[in-house]
Structures are given as structure tokens and as C-alpha cells.
């Protein structure tokens, strides 16, 4: 019997594992991950992690930036806890060996970031997530009692009588299907960017944890809030980090004009100014792009319209010192050198503000089930996450969830064995049936593509009621068709087609909740912009969307009040003092 079973070996999952191991070495802790932990998507994060350390910065200012950045949809008690614990977490990472970039006196260096009023973003060049994840992974190796299930894919949460009892998972290498009994489960499966066609997210980001929780009866929260990052490379969707703008990069349209000044984001200055112009929040920058496109001031490419990110004035030396990975990525994937060329960029789906509904300790309404990281919604990100808040979030709430689960495991006995066995058997039969193969039917990839384009059309940067309503029907149709797809691979060994099929199902679940929540929220707030309801409506919608799975399998959306502590809703002001 596992005491704490963590699904996901990314930043949140590994941080939770260490927290459990440190709290009580007697506990059995296991990490199940569909890829080797160091392959998790945290590895791709580039820009940095925010936490107050500098003199002249205060916790309250970080809170305010986060809350106003989230358009007052954040739970302020959670934000306060997050901001207070973030510095310790980043220092803890430093103590574990993370190679943070440094000032010449040996102290950790910080850089500016979008929507932040102070310089408080710690960074390890522009491979922050990579260093963070590898440091965490290597540190977990010190705790030899942490059991790892590498390349195991979790397909189901076993829940009985309102309490979690473990998971069912496939060992991808052998095809072995096993029920892993556990007193507590922490979901740390990351985001779901792959429900959209054009995303910075890795192939593994298919929203599995959200779907697992949702199917098990736990609600998802704020699923309509999908973040578009303003600067992705046009074909691949590879992210050009916000750090590029923080170091002084400009966004220009086809006339070479810094167009952000036309969107109430301040006036251009030669060097970056905090909370202004290119350092505005991501939702506003992505929306400005759409307006430029409508005005015909973007440049057409085979992969859609683009604007340019101009780094040329930074010079080769600064680029190499601060954002070398940007240069490497541009050279290999776009065949250009940012020191001399303009970088074509367009908004790209990047991050999921919503996720599994949890409280401030990471607990879901199902006893023993916790969630942390991008898959969870605590919520500190509200309607729009600020860049560099996610990495500290996965650490702070990964640790909190780990500790809470450890305490739960210590104070509760293991659950009912019979229910676990029958549920496990049912799931095994379902998976084995899927692996029998089927020569006819549509391809997984084709349905996936249809779903992705439906989402892009309906739940993109701007949304509108009737398109969303139509998308509800399209998705319902796709769901049915997905029950009957072609499966060519009947092998037990490393059958990725079987996994892709499971992922298609989870993505469809997640897609349905996104569209349902977006349809239900008749206002514009942060990353959720309705062309038919263009204003923010605090009277009706200063509330989280909470979506449950109805007995007939469709999503049913309700509202939950936002926790306000000290910052009453106000206007979001950028570029004006």
C-alpha cells in the first residue's frame, strides 16, 4: 500500500515527493509518470520564477501585481500564501544546487517580467525550467525510498464512497495494466495546451489529470481561462520567452511601429519600463495582436499572420549572456539570428489558468485526492497568469499538497479492498478491449485535429456565444466518433497508439469543459474575451466557474465566489502611473 501516490513527475510532482519524504521518511511515496521525470514539460520553461527578495520590493506588491494581472479572479488568501512562501522555495532550490544566474557579488540575480512592477524574477539564463526540473529530479535521487513508476500511464482514479483508493495505470513498456492502491493521490499532471492546434506545450500536455479528476467526480475550476502567449514561432509554436522583452525586446508591426502604445499600454521608451508596453500582461498583448491583424498591420506567412520581435538593438553580447537559448532556438528552428534579424511571432496557446478545483492546501473535494501545479486551480492565477508565477506556484503548492497528503496518510487507514479490485478489473477489461485493435474507423489523429480546430475557432483569444454553442455540438459529435476509432497497434510493448487514444479521450473531456465554461461566462475578463459581452461584470461574474460532470457525461457549470482579502476589484492599469 502506497501512502502518497503522485501522478506526474514534473516540477509540482517532484517537489511534492520530496516534501513527503522529508516530512516522514516512514511513508511510502511513489511518483508515476508517463515520461521519465526529467522529460516533463517543466523542462521547457525558459524565462524565470518570481519571488520577492530585492530590497525595495514587498510581498504586498507581488500580491497586487498577481491579483490585478488576474483581473481580480484570484483567491487572495491563496495569493498571499503563495507570495509569502515563494522566496523560501526558490532559496530551497538554490540550496539544492539550482544554477541561478548571479550578480557579480554572488547574490541571485533578478530580471523584470510582464505585469510585474518590480524586478523579482529569478532566472537561470533562459533555461530556468530546465535547471529547476533537473535540480529537483537529481535531488529526489538522494531519497532512495521514493518509488518511481517511469513511463506508466494513469488511466483512472479509483474512488469509492467519496474517497480515493489509488489509480489504474499501464506500464507502457510492457503493456501491463495494474491497480496501484494508495491512501492518497496527488495529481500533478500539468496543463492541457494540446487541446489547441497551435501551442507552446509539449506533446504530453493533454490534460490527463483534469480529466481523471473530472471523471471521478471532482469539479474543475475556471476552465475558460486559457492563456495565449504573445510570442510564439509561427510554424512550431516554440516559445520565445518573455525574458526577451524583459531584456529590452520590442514588438513591432509590419510598419516597424511599436503598436502596443495604441492599446493603452503606455508610451514607448528605449529601455524597458515595468508594467508598461512590451512588459504588459499576456492577455492584453495577445488581444492587441488580433486588433493589429484586423487593421491589416500584420505580415502574412504560410503559417498565419505575424508581427515581429525586434532584439537587434540588444546586441550579440547581451543576447548571448541573458537569452542564449532564444538565439539557439531561432537559429535552428527559424533559420535566423536575432542579433541581426527580426523574429516573426504570433500569439500561441501557452498555459491553463483553470484546472482541478482545490483549496489552499491542494485538497480536492474528494477525500485523499490532491492536485498541484498547472493541472490544479487553487487559484492564484485568476483570469490571467503573470509570466514567471507558474514555476514558484508548482513549488509552493507542490510542497503544500505533499505535506497535506502526508498528514492525511498518517491519520487514515487504507481503504476498502473489494471496491478497488472491481474498479481495477473493469478498467483493465476496457483497456484490453481497446488493444484488440480495429481495422476500420477514423484515425485518432484526424479526430484530434478536428477537436483542436474547433477549440481554436470557438475558444481562442476572442469568443462569441453562437460559435461556442456550435462548438458544444461539434464536441459532442466528436466524442461519439472517438468511441469508434481505428487502432492499428495491437502490441503490448510500448503501444503509443493506445496511449494517444486515451489522451484523445481526456482532451475531449477537457475541451468540453473549456467550451461550456466559456459559454456560461457572459462577460470579458482577462484571457476570456467575449465579443458579445465586452465588459467585465463584477456583479454577476466576480466568481469562479465550477464545472462538474453530469450523470449523462455532459459538463454542468456553476459559480463559486472569489475570496477577496485586501484588494477590492479595481481597474487594471498598465503603462500609466
Amino acid at each position, binding site marked *: 500500500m502506497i501512502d502518497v501516490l503522485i501522478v506526474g513527475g514534473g516540477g509540482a510532482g517532484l517537489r511534492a515527493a520530496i516534501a513527503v519524504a522529508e516530512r516522514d521518511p516512514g511513508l511510502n511515496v511513489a511518483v508515476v509518470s508517463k515520461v521519465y521525470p526529467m522529460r516533463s514539460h517543466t523542462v521547457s520553461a525558459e524565462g524565470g520564477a518570481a519571488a520577492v527578495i530585492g530590497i525595495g520590493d514587498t510581498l504586498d506588491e507581488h500580491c497586487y501585481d498577481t491579483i490585478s494581472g488576474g483581473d481580480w479572479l484570484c483567491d487572495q488568501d491563496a495569493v498571499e500564501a503563495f507570495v509569502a512562501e515563494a522566496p523560501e522555495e526558490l*532559496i530551497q532550490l538554490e540550496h539544492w*544546487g539550482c*544554477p541561478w544566474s548571479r550578480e557579480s557579488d554572488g547574490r541571485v540575480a533578478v530580471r523584470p517580467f510582464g505585469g510585474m512592477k518590480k524586478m523579482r524574477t529569478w532566472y537561470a539564463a533562459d533555461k530556468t525550467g530546465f535547471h529547476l526540473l533537473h535540480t529537483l529530479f537529481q535531488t529526489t535521487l538522494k531519497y532512495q525510498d521514493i518509488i518511481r513508476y*517511469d513511463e506508466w500511464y494513469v488511466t483512472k482514479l479509483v474512488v469509492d464512497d467519496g474517497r480515493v483508493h489509488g489509480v489504474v495505470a499501464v506500464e507502457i513498456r510492457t503493456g501491463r495494466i495494474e491497480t496501484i492502491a494508495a491512501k492518497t493521490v496527488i495529481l500533478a499532471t500539468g496543463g492541457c495546451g494540446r487541446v489547441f492546434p*497551435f501551442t507552446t506545450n509539449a506533446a504530453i500536455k493533454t490534460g490527463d489529470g483534469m480529466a481523471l479528476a473530472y471523471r471521478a467526480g471532482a469539479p474543475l475550476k475556471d476552465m475558460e481561462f486559457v492563456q495565449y502567449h504573445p510570442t510564439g514561432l509561427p510554424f512550431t509554436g516554440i516559445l520565445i520567452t518573455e525574458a526577451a522583452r524583459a531584456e529590452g525586446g520590442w514588438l513591432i508591426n509590419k510598419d516597424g511601429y511599436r503598436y502596443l502604445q495604441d492599446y493603452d499600454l503606455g508610451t514607448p521608451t528605449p529601455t524597458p519600463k515595468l508594467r508598461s508596453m512590451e512588459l504588459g500582461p499576456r492577455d492584453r498583448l495577445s488581444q492587441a495582436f488580433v486588433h493589429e491583424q484586423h487593421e491589416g498591420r500584420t505580415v502574412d506567412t504560410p503559417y498565419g499572420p505575424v508581427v515581429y520581435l525586434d532584439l537587434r538593438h540588444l546586441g550579440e553580447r547581451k543576447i548571448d549572456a541573458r537569452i542564449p537559448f532564444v538565439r539557439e532556438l531561432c537559429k535552428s528552428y527559424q533559420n535566423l539570428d536575432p542579433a541581426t534579424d527580426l523574429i516573426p511571432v504570433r500569439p500561441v496557446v501557452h498555459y491553463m489558468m483553470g484546472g482541478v478545483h482545490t483549496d489552499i492546501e491542494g485538497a480536492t473535494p474528494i477525500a485523499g485526492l490532491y492536485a498541484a501545479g498547472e493541472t490544479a486551480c487553487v487559484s492564484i492565477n485568476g483570469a490571467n497568469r503573470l509570466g514567471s508565477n507558474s514555476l514558484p506556484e508548482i513549488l509552493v503548492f507542490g510542497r503544500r499538497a505533499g505535506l497535506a497528503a502526508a498528514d492525511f496518510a498518517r491519520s487514515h487507514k487504507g481503504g476498502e479492498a473489494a471496491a478497488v479490485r472491481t474498479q481495477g478489473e473493469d478498467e483493465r477489461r476496457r483497456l484490453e478491449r481497446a488493444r484488440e485493435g480495429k481495422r476500420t474507423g477514423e484515425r*485518432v489523429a484526424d479526430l484530434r485535429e478536428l477537436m483542436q480546430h474547433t477549440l481554436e475557432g470557438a475558444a481562442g483569444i476572442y469568443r462569441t456565444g453562437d460559435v461556442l454553442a456550435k462548438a458544444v455540438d461539434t464536441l459532442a459529435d466528436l466524442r461519439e466518433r472517438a468511441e469508434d476509432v481505428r487502432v492499428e497497434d495491437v*502490441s503490448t*510493448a*510500448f503501444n503509443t*497508439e493506445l496511449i494517444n487514444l486515451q489522451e484523445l479521450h481526456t482532451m475531449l473531456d477537457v475541451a468540453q469543459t473549456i467550451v461550456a465554461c466559456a459559454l456560461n461566462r457572459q462577460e470579458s475578463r482577462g484571457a476570456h474575451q467575449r465579443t458579445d459581452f465586452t465588459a467585465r461584470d463584477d456583479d454577476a461574474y466576480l466568481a469562479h466557474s465550477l464545472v462538474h460532470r453530469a450523470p449523462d457525461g455532459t459538463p454542468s457549470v456553476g459559480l463559486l465566489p472569489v475570496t477577496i482579502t485586501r484588494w477590492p476589484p479595481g481597474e487594471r492599469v498598465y503603462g500609466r502611473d
Partner: protein
Amino acid sequence: MTDTTQEVRQEAGTRTIRLEVARYRPGEDAEPVFQGYDVPLMADWAVLDGLNYVKDQLDGSLSYRWSCRMGVCGSCGMNVNGEPRLTCGTFLTEYGEGPVRIEPLKGFPVIRDLVVDIDDFLAKLSSVRPWLIREGEELPLTTEYAQTPEQLEAYKQYSMCINCLLCYSACPVYVLDPDFLGPAAIALAQRYNLDSRDMGDRFDVLNLDEAVWGCTFVGECTRVCPKHVDPAEAIQRYKLTAALRSILPWSKR
């Protein structure tokens, strides 16, 4: 491949390139066989995009690993025309008219098609104690250990390894003798050895016949490394360290 829109596929319809992909199904095949697929030759397609095209459109049963498609997760290493490469960062146009031969990384047991077993490497990775070792009192979580940019520079390069294992596949010593600790694991040990905050000693695991002394300085590991880690250098440096320590037993590091 992020967005296989209909237009892209049509536009590509005319020019194709042949991929010869090693297939191996345990229990069915006695040894790998090659299977040919024609995929669109698109200017900006990586080899990985070609494989994704095969899996999505031609043959759903092909298995391989990938995730980030931006050269940082380390999962998509394969042998492309005999060279270990990250397939997400290797472009089809590099191979002219083709064909492009895609095989699993050499030196590892093949689990399936292009997927190799890397558990041995993970065991080696843990064996070098790749974590920061401190002695005495820890600083509280309000203060960081100071480290100047120069001190950071001293190990930074060795911290860039993405565990893609191209170096193992390229190293004839490892291919010949799987007991060899190998380039990435030793480079990682050096990453901690040279970190000014680390007080650990990894002499006992590095100064072994099958650790640094197994390396004959072929140098291929460094040549194929996509992240410029230079493991060959890390190993030769530790050889010097270990040799000096062996003749001057009182000296450390």
C-alpha cells in the same frame, strides 16, 4: 508538427522524401526490419515531423518517444543515417533526395521500433550522487549561498545536459561495454564536483576501471552532443584530478 492543416498537406503533395524506419516488435520480429514510408518534404519539417506524419496519417502502429519538439526534453534521440541525432532538431532537407534511415539509438537494448531501454543509464546517473552535498550547518531558507558568476561559469557547461544519450550511442567504449559509466553521468558528476557550493567527494565512484578509466578519449561524445556539454573534457579533467590524487593522497579534488 504542430499544425497539419489541410493546405500544408496539399502544398506538400508534390515533393516527398523516403523514410526508412527500423521496426521491431518483440515476440514477432527476430530482429529489426526496415519499413519505407514516403512523407512530404517540407522545408521546415524536422525528421520528427516526418515521423509524426507517418504515425498520424500512414501507420498508427509506429512507436517512438518525443515530447517538447524544442530540443530540451531529451526524449527524441535516434540514429539518423548512422548518426545519433535529436530528431526534433534535425531537418529533412539536410538529406537532399533521401532516403533517410531512422534507427533506434545504438548501444541500448531495443524495446520496440525506435524506443530503447535507458534504465541502465538512470541507474548510473544516481550512482554518481548527482545532488549538492553539504557538510555542517545549513543556511536558513532566508539566505542563499553566494556564488559569483565566475564560480557559476566553472560548472555551468556541465549542467546543460538533457540526458538525451546521444553521447552514449556515439561512444564505442559504451557500445562495446555497457558497464562503462559513460560520458553524461561523468559530466554530471563533474557538474557537482566543480560547483563551489558542493562539498561532496565522488572519487570512489569515478576513479574506477569502468568509470573515467574506461574512456579512451574517442571524443565522439563531445562531437554529437547537441547541448555542447563536452563530456569528453569533463572526463579527461577528472582523469587528471584522480591521477594527481592517487599519487598525492593528501590532495583533494
